[in-house]
């Protein structure tokens, strides 16, 4: 069996399950078992999505900007924090527990406070995205740094490497797989985080639009936005995956090798 064909067949069950759910949804709404004002038919949702597409895109621009800025700042902060915490053990001991605690605070609970402090503009939204995306990346990087073999560092030192060289040649590459695992989660958090913070105040954005159509009881439009957000999140995760593959060519080789062994 060729690799390509195998790839497609391995995804068949997931595609079938998804099709089944959509079919079930279609039957439930079309036959009237669930009334249309509670669950709009998928056909109506697609119609709403097509009809509203220009306006959704307009709101999406703001939301994606917030997600992008927030994620970028989150990555930079995570990188600095994880590197410092890896370098100075005392910082790790001091801040790791606090980081865990901050993760138990629900996003929806701090969003109103942020709006209160920063107003209705982009600032509170970006801040919320930073808060939600920062943690998975930091933890990913920390674990990645720690995964380095002690002997590898000794060998580098024996070869006369400086601390910076060890960091560059050994630690950063070792942390890449976990960094990307964290980034993949964070990328989807970023969009959702931006939307949630828009629910609680703002003038433009997918969250604002959602609140508006909800208040108008236009559930088909609301579902259209939800599906749009899902697609955007999936696209972002796919983008992260592509970047991961391009920046870690050796992983692709290893994965291929493992598959060959299994065959």
């Amino acid at each position, binding site marked *: 069996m060729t690799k390509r064909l195998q790839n497609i067949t391995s995804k068949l069950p997931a595609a079938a399950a998804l099709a089944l759910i959509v079919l079930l949804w279609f039957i439930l709404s079309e036959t009237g078992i669930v009334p249309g004002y509670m669950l709009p038919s998928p056909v109506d949702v697609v119609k709403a999505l097509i009809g509203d597409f220009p306006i959704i895109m307009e709101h999406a621009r703001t939301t994606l900007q917030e997600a992008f800025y927030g994620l970028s700042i989150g990555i930079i902060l995570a990188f600095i924090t994880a590197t410092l915490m890896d370098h100075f053990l005392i910082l790790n001991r001091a801040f790791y527990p606090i980081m865990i605690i901050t993760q138990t605070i629900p996003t929806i609970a701090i969003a109103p406070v942020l709006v209160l402090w920063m107003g209705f503009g982009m600032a509170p939204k970006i801040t919320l995205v930073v808060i939600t995306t920062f943690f998975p990346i930091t933890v990913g990087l920390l674990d990645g740094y720690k995964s380095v*073999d002690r*002997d*590898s560092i*000794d*060998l*580098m*030192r*024996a*070869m*006369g*490497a400086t601390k910076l*060289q060890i960091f560059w*040649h*050994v630690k950063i*590459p*070792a942390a*890449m797989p976990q960094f990307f695992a964290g980034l993949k989660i964070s990328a989807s958090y970023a969009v959702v985080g931006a939307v949630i913070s828009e629910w609680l105040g703002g003038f433009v954005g997918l969250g604002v639009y959602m609140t508006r159509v909800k208040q108008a009881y236009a559930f088909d439009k609301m579902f259209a936005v939800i599906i749009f957000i899902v697609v955007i999140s999936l696209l972002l995760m796919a983008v992260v995956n592509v970047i991961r593959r391009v920046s*870690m060519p*050796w992983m692709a*080789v*290893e994965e291929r*090798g493992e598959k060959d062994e299994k065959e």
Partner: protein
Amino acid sequence: MTLLKAEHITKKYSGRTIIEDISIDLQEGELVSLLGVSGAGKTTLFHVLSGLVAPEEGRVLLSGEDITAKPGRISYMMQKDLLLPHKKIIDNVSLPLVLKGEKKKDAREKADPLFEEFGLEGTQYQYPSQLSGGMRQRAALLRTYLSSDGVALLDEPFSALDTITKSNIHRWYLDVMEHINLSTLFITHDIDEAILLSDRIYILNGRPGRITEEIVIEEKKPRQADFNLSDAFFRYKREIIGRLALEEEQEK
């Protein structure tokens, strides 16, 4: 000419003496083995010689220069190959040159001609995960060679390999050593390996570890791979086993 000399090395870890008053030397072009049971402090001695840790007493001299606790002068190969998974083989082996400030391209150009010598031709642009265990050890040895100024410490480099691969790599190793100039200190707990490869053998015994014996293997080099089936070989082996057993009795 004496290349490497260790004088009266004593090393303690958290109050416990691991090695005590160890003095050894390595002449140019020699291969000298440190043979001893596990826990005799062989690896600790290598950590001191390579400069990774400072000894409580004693000093390490490289061609007369004091290099105690100064890493980066003597190359060190560990039991694991420790090739970096994200670098191609050529970048792995030329890493020591890059660390010394050479450009990646220049380092590659210097490493490339040696691939044939080390039986690694064609693997330059592969990743370590694509190589077999024996090939990875060869690459690790090439890296060790490129990072050395002529002196290398090899810490049980072949012990993780299966017997057949190991005997192949011994033959290969003896062959490579004919062509390159690398004075080597070699840790092993494999008596056969020590006799087969060494010019001299230090026997390291006890807790704390001390040098208790020095045995010269007179057999000329290049040695044939069937040296380990000769009478001379077994005489050496009997002698070494006797020494090791004697030491154990004295311990009691």
